[in-house]
């Protein structure tokens, strides 16, 4: 190590890189040491468990440390119980799952009750919910600030305006306009909201202690359902005619109706699964690569794992934008199909 250090002495950049690598090494060394200790005392390193802990939701915001050394922000737990009504307390009351709070206990981030006659529904502000609120604060502060600037400055965009205006115009001119032929301006605010909500949450998910909100099926489910509702309440008579009276012999209608219904559901379903799978997969790949160091219990794995994980992380930055774009784009496409006017080419369609 020292000879290596001497060999590269004189080149500042190389030294810096080396020091950086060294620090990564010492970190992985320490970490693997901790893992080994735990392995001898308690359990073997289980990458599946680590990965699922990272991509899953949790009732406190874990910052660093393991087990009793863990440092985390407690989050409020809100339960609706058929016996006690609304129950609220902080997640720190569970002491990381070591203690019960009243009849309630937490096991693998699932809250249960010891009272067999009680049924509870978990409406807690989990890590994902907290992260979502954070994203809302970020989005609102950005865009309300920008809106104020637009009121004050009627000329060319300046500062933060000039960063977001191309994105806003991109959603309006490249997503809404080409896909929605009839009255696209009505849907631009909705598409903008979807785009920035997903994008900002994708980016927050990439932060080291961030939550995996957009890789959570519940979140993508809600987004897909909202798209489904917006698409169908805006569907015009041609859209509904095509579904209920498709241009096929009448005796085929009983077959066509379920098929069309599947068509309505499957479009947003694909949206839901695509966003969930892409974001979750990215997180799994990054954590798996880092886990290699702990699986092999070898600090030199860092040479391979860290650059690879960095590469995937940068790729995920692109994916974060791309998935927000794809979701918004397909939403626009669905709305466009539902609101399309057919007066000119009715005889050609289908």
């Amino acid at each position, binding site marked *: 190590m020292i000879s290596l250090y001497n060999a590269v002495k004189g080149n500042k950049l190389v030294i810096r890189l080396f020091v950086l690598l060294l620090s990564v090494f010492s970190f992985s060394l320490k970490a693997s040491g901790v893992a080994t200790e735990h392995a001898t005392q308690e359990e073997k390193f289980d990458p599946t468990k680590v990965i699922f802990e990272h991509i899953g939701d949790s009732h406190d915001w874990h910052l660093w440390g393991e087990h009793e050394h863990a440092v985390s922000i407690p989050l409020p737990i809100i339960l609706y119980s058929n016996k006690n009504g609304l129950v609220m307390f902080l997640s720190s009351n569970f002491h990381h799952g070591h203690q019960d709070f009243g009849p309630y206990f937490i096991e693998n981030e699932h809250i249960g009750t010891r009272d067999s006659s009680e049924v509870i529904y*978990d409406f807690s502000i989990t890590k994902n919910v907290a992260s979502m609120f954070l994203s809302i604060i970020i989005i609102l502060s950005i865009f309300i600030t920008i809106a104020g600037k637009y009121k004050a400055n009627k000329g060319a965009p300046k500062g933060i305006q000039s960063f977001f205006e191309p994105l806003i115009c991109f959603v309006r001119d490249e997503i809404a306009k080409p896909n929605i032929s009839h009255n696209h301006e009505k849907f631009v605010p909705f598409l903008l909201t979807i785009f920035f909500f997903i994008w900002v949450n994708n980016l927050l998910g990439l932060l080291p202690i961030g939550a995996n909100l957009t890789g959570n099926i519940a*979140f993508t*489910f809600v987004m897909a359902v909202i798209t489904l509702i917006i698409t169908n309440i805006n569907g015009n008579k041609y859209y509904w005619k095509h579904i209920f009276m498709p241009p096929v012999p009448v005796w085929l209608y009983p077959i066509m109706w379920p098929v069309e219904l599947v068509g309505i559901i499957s479009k947003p379903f694909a949206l839901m699964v695509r966003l969930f799978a892409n974001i979750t997969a990215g997180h799994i790949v990054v954590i798996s690569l880092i886990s290699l160091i702990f699986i092999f219990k070898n600090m030199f794995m860092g040479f391979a794992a860290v650059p690879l994980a960095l590469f995937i992380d940068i790729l995920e930055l692109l994916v974060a934008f791309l998935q927000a774009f794809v979701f918004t784009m397909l939403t626009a496409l669905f709305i466009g199909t539902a609101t399309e006017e057919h007066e000119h080419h009715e005889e050609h369609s289908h």
Partner: protein
Amino acid sequence: MGANSLITPAIGLVFWSTIAFTLLLFILVKFAWKPILGAIKEREKSIEDALNAAESAKAQLGNLKAENEKLLDETRKERERILKEAQVVANNVINEAREKANAEAQNIVESAKATINSEKQAAITQIKNTIGTLSVEIAESIVRKNLNADEAQQNLVKEYLKDVKLN
């Protein structure tokens, strides 16, 4: 915890996501997207208007230029025409004046000639008359003294001639 929990939507997150997105949508639409999109559209419109105005101003300027050119051309032609006319008029005036002057001069010369002639005739007539009278007077004197002395006669003639001034 496992694959099953991964693909089962948790009711809490569904609930909060729905509320959060709906709220976000309404707040953003009211306080962000409407002013932002409105301002962008307004600016795009004003830019387009400005471009159109510039285009029409350019066209107007072109028209004005052409008009000016036309006017200038007309003026030039008018000037040429006026100059030509003036030249003609001037020539006429000069010719007329010259003719008049010539005629006048002719008249003057002629009348002068006539006057001179008549004066000459009058002078000749007067000379003739005077010569006659003188001759008669001389003859008279000669006749009166001639009869006395020769010498005396000569002196007398001399004397009388001295009195006579031939002019």
